[in-house]
């Protein structure tokens, strides 16, 4: 293996493990708010590592700016989509899990409605 292949392998292994961890979290966690943690953070970091692997592997043929644009776009839009999903879930009245301890948003939304 050459040096570039070793660095690419490290990035690919890290990214694959993070995406798999996010999939396990989406399956196993109890309610929609905690599932969004797994899907929004871990999956994004995994995809960023995989795109870094692509950039590293094709570096001898020249730097590719489109893949860098993908990284920038995913990094910019993943928190926004998590926020939209969770806000619509809370406003629709999706219940929290029984094991959750406190709900800070309840007072805020009561003030907004009343």
């Amino acid at each position, binding site marked *: 293996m050459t040096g570039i292949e070793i660095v*690419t392998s490290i990035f690919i292994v890290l990214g694959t493990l993070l995406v798999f961890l996010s*999939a396990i979290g989406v399956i196993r966690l109890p309610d929609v708010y905690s599932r969004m943690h797994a899907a929004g953070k871990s999956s994004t970091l995994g*995809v960023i590592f995989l795109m870094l*692997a*692509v950039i590293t592997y094709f570096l001898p043929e020249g730097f590719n700016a489109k893949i860098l644009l993908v990284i920038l776009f995913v990094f910019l839009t*993943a928190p926004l*989509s998590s926020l939209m999903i969770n806000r619509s879930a809370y406003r629709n009245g999706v219940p929290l899990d029984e094991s959750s301890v406190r709900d800070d948003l309840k007072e805020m939304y009561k003030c907004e409605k009343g």
Partner: protein
Amino acid sequence: MFQWILYTSLVILGISLVLFFIRIMKGPSVNDRILGLDALGISLVGFIGVVMILQKTLIYADIILVLSILSFIGTVAMSKFVEGGSVFDRD
């Protein structure tokens, strides 16, 4: 060795795509299904990235960009539609 790492990573990414699909089918509320679709779109970007390294080609770069943009737009439109019934706010 490098080929072996690539194929193993493709198998693990495929397993995680199947897990997201199970969440889409099973999800108790509509927001669970939207969450599964969002995560599946993001993970598909990484899957196509590994396929790019495996086939030693760069022509899928445009497809990756369009796929990530479409996943984001779809998530925002679906969650705003579920939230209030109106996708565009007009005051």
